[in-house]
C-alpha cells in the first residue's frame, strides 16, 4: 500500500508544479516585450483591444493600473483563489471560468477516452509484436507505427473526414451533438454524443496507439533479456503465462510512466482535433479566442488545461505505485 509519507511527497510535488504553472501563467503576457496588445491591457493603457467595459473591470480587479508587478501578482493570486480568471472579451458578459466550465467536459471526454482506448489497444499490440520480434509482421507493423506516430494528429483527422464524412457520409463532419434536435431520452442523447465522437476519438486513438504499442514492444524486448524470464522458461511455464505474467507485467511499469509523460501531448492533440471537427471543447474555444484576440480566455484555458494535466499526472503516478511493489515502500 501507499504510505502516507509517500503520498504526501507526491502531493507536495504536484502542488509545487501547479504553483509553477500558475506563476508562469501570470508572467507569460508580461514578459513578452513590445507587444502592443499587452501594453494596452496589462500596461494600464486601456482602449482599443477588447470591450472597454471589460478592460476597465479587469484593470480594476487585477490591479493592472498599479505598476508594481508584485502587487499585480498578489491581486492575481487573490482573484484566482476566488475562482476569478477574468472576463472573456468574446463571450462577454460571461466570465472566463464559466466559459471554460461549459467546454472542459468535452475536452476531458475526448482526451480521456482517446488515451484509455489507445492504451487498451496499443499495449496488447506491443506485447504481440515483442513476442514476435524480428518477424515480418513485427517489422511491418513497427515501421507503420513509426510512420503514423510522426504524422500530426489533425492530418489523420482530415483523412478520416474525407473518407467517412465526405466520401461516404456515415459520420457527421462536425459538432458534439446534432443541432436543433430534442431527445426522447437520455440514451438517445448519449447515443448521439457517441455517434459524433466516433471520428474525433478514432483520430486520437490512431494517432496515439502506435506510440504506446512501440513503447510497450521495446520495453518488453528489454525485459525479455532479464534472468527471471529465462527462469520462467526453465520452470516449464506455458508461453502465455511467461508472456503476460512475467514479461508484460514487468514491461508495463515503464510504459505507465510514458503514458503519464505523454498526457500533455494528448491534450495538445485533442485541442487540434476539436478544432478540426468543430467540437465544442476547449480546443475549439482556444481557437476562437485566438481569432478574436480574447487574451483573458486564452490565458484561462492554458491554466486550466495545465492544472488538469498536472492532476492527471498525479493520478498516473499513484497507479504506478499500486502496480509496482518496489515503490510503495520508499
Amino acid at each position: 500500500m501507499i504510505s502516507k509519507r509517500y503520498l504526501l511527497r507526491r502531493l507536495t510535488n504536484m502542488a509545487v508544479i501547479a504553483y509553477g504553472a500558475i506563476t508562469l501563467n501570470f508572467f507569460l503576457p508580461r514578459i513578452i516585450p513590445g507587444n502592443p496588445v499587452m501594453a494596452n491591457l496589462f500596461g494600464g493603457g486601456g482602449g482599443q483591444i477588447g470591450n472597454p467595459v471589460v478592460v476597465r473591470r479587469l484593470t480594476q480587479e487585477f490591479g493592472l493600473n498599479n505598476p508594481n508587478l508584485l502587487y499585480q501578482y498578489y491581486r492575481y493570486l487573490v482573484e484566482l483563489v476566488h475562482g476569478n480568471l477574468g472576463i472573456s472579451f468574446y463571450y462577454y458578459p460571461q466570465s472566463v471560468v464559466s466559459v471554460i466550465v461549459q467546454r472542459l467536459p468535452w475536452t476531458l471526454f475526448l482526451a480521456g477516452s482517446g488515451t484509455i482506448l489507445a492504451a487498451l489497444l496499443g499495449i496488447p499490440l506491443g506485447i504481440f509484436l515483442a513476442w514476435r520480434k524480428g518477424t515480418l509482421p513485427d517489422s511491418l507493423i513497427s515501421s507503420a507505427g513509426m510512420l503514423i506516430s510522426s504524422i500530426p494528429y489533425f492530418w489523420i483527422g482530415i483523412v478520416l473526414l474525407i473518407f467517412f464524412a465526405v466520401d461516404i457520409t456515415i459520420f457527421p463532419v462536425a459538432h458534439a451533438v446534432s443541432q436543433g434536435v430534442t431527445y426522447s431520452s437520455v440514451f438517445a442523447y448519449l447515443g448521439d454524443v457517441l455517434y459524433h465522437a466516433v471520428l474525433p476519438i478514432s483520430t486520437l486513438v490512431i494517432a496515439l496507439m502506435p506510440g504506446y504499442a512501440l513503447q510497450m514492444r521495446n520495453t518488453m524486448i528489454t525485459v525479455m533479456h532479464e534472468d527471471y524470464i529465462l527462469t520462467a522458461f526453465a520452470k516449464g511455464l506455458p508461453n502465455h503465462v511467461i508472456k503476460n505474467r512475467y514479461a508484460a507485467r514487468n514491461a508495463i511499469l515503464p510504459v505507465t510512466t510514458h503514458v503519464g509523460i505523454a498526457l500533455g501531448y494528448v491534450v495538445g492533440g485533442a485541442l487540434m482535433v476539436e478544432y478540426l471537427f468543430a467540437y465544442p471543447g476547449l480546443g475549439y474555444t482556444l481557437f476562437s479566442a485566438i481569432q478574436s484576440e480574447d487574451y483573458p480566455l486564452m490565458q484561462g484555458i492554458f491554466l486550466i488545461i495545465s492544472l488538469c494535466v498536472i492532476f492527471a499526472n498525479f493520478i498516473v503516478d499513484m497507479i504506478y505505485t499500486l502496480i509496482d511493489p518496489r515503490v510503495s515502500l520508499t
Partner: protein
Amino acid sequence: MNIQTVSKQQSPVSFLARRLIRPLVPLTHSRKFILGASIVMFFVALGLLGRLIVPFGPLAQSGAPWSPPSARHILGTNYLGQDVFSWFVIGTATSLKVGFFVALFSSSIGISVGLTAGYLGKYTDDVLMRFVDMLLVIPAFPLLVILSAYLPPTNTSTILILSLLSWPFMSRVVRSQVLTLKERGYVAVSKLSGAGNLSVMFKDIFPNMAPIIFINMIFLVIGAIIAQAGLAFFGLGNVNSINWGTMLYWAQVEDAAVQSAWWWILPPGLAIGVLGMGLNMLANGIAETTLEMRMG
C-alpha cells in the same frame, strides 16, 4: 593473422579518421541506419535542390483551381490554381529548416542545463530539475499557442518559441548521462592521471554521450516539424510562408476535405510521417549499434 602497420608519425587526416570516422563504421552495418539515412537524405536533397526542380513558381497560377493530379501538375493544383508539387518541394526546405534550427538551439539549451545540473549537483541540480519537471508536465501545445499569439507571426518567432519549449527532455537525458558517466571507472582513472574537472567533463564524459545527444536531437527535429505544422494549422506563425504546415492550413481553410482534394492534403502529412519514420530509424540504428558496441 591481422598485423597492423603503424606509422610512427600520424598525419592530421589519419588522426581525424581514427577519432571521427572509425567509430561510425559499425553504423554502416545497420540496415535500419542505412534505410533511415537514405530517407532523410532524400528529403534534404529535395530541400536543397527545391528551386531547381520545381516546374512552376509555387505562387504562380499555373492551372485551373482544384485540378486533380495530371502530367502537367503531378500533385494537382490548389484553390488558386497553384501547383501543389511546387508548394510541396519548396515547403520541404522551410520545414526542414525549422526542424534543424529548433533541434540546434533547444539542444544547446538542454545540454547546458543538463551538464550544469548533473555536474554541480546539490541545490543547483534540485532547482534546475524541478523547473525542468514542471516544463515537462505542463502541456506544451497550449503554451506554444499562447506564445505564438503574443509574438509577431514570423518563422523566426516559431523557431524561437519551439526552441524555448523543447529543451527540457534533452536536459533530463544529459543530466542522467552525466550522473551515470561520472561514476564510470575511466572517469576516475582520468582524474587519477591528473586531468582537471573541465578536461574530464569535455574529454571523457561529453564524447561518450554523443550518440544519445544525437538521438535526442533527431527526436527534436521530428517534434519541431510536427509542432510547427500544428501551429500553422491553428493559423499561428507565418501562414504566408510556404511549408508543409501551411499547406495543410490552407487546405483546411479552403475546405479541401469537402472538395475531396486529397492530392493537396495527403503529400504534406505523409511527408512528415515518412521523414519522421526515417529519422526514427536513423535513431534506432544508432541506438542499437552503440548498444552492441558497449556490450562488446
